[in-house]
């Protein structure tokens, strides 16, 4: 297989693996956080405001790892420097 094909293959595989594996951890973490927050709100409905705000901030923190993976896979798919390099060399 020539270089263009190899880099294309590697990029598509890497993008899929990045977002696929990268979504597992944050999904488990967010699920646990929301479940805990829901049971806390059920126990203390008066504190719902503080709990909700803390939950949102925490979710944003957890979610950013998944967002990093997404950004990396988007860069691999749409703005891949290696692909551009090979295309420029070939063209």
């Amino acid at each position, binding site marked *: 297989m020539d270089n263009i094909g190899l880099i294309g293959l590697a990029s598509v595989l890497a993008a899929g693996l990045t977002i696929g594996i990268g979504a597992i951890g944050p999904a488990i973490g967010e699920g646990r956080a929301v479940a805990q927050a829901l049971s806390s709100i059920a126990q203390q409905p008066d504190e719902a405001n503080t709990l909700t*705000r803390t939950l*949102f*901030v925490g979710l*944003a923190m957890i979610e950013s790892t998944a*967002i990093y993976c997404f950004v990396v896979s988007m860069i691999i798919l749409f703005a891949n420097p290696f692909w551009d390099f090979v295309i420029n060399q070939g063209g």
Partner: protein
Amino acid sequence: MDIKDISPDQVVYFSLGPFDLNATIAYTWGVMALIVLVSIIVTNRMTASENMSRWQNFLEIVVDFLRRQIADISGEKPELYMPYIGTLFVFIAVCNLLSVVPGFLPPTASLSTTAALAITVFMAVIIFGVIKRGPLGYLRQYVKPTPMMLPFNIMGEFSRTLALAVRLFGNIMSGVKIVAILLAIAPLVFPVLMNALGLLTGMIQAYIFAVLAMVYIASATRIERERHEKTQTTQGDSDG
């Protein structure tokens, strides 16, 4: 924006020497003009009576919501932080909400805009910290709890700025991108559903950006107050 572009920076309308007028800048100006115009028009006809206009009611809800959130997080009067945090929230929220308008490219889908906003947060933390605690008091928090933590505190300062920028960019860009991909493969109903979801995530991201900025500022200004109160109470004890 083409399906291959991952940021509205790549859509250039007009070029003058080294300066490009790209979609990010153009739509940022549009959003700024819209916010200023709506605020001027609404606040021109403000009234304290009961028959206020709907727009005034709406703006009062937004301002009151922001003031309550800031007071909750910082534990202080919201006046000092309101202009900055309120501007962040309103600008990001309007950008994200307008992304349902066909043809509008939200400026927050560009890493340049979000990085600029995150850098203002970085500066604001320093400025509010120095205002509240003085330069030495502000710098002292970097060697707490021990001077060994100095490099980690400094790294944390930078990495949270990066996280703020990439989080907002990633969320909004993913919304735009998913709609663009769906338009190519299932253009009938599904893009509308994802757009509706984009409204929700857009509001949540604006809220999170503003709240996180406030949390960072509060963490740089709060310790001083606690210590101040402690010295006051010990003085009170010795007096009594």
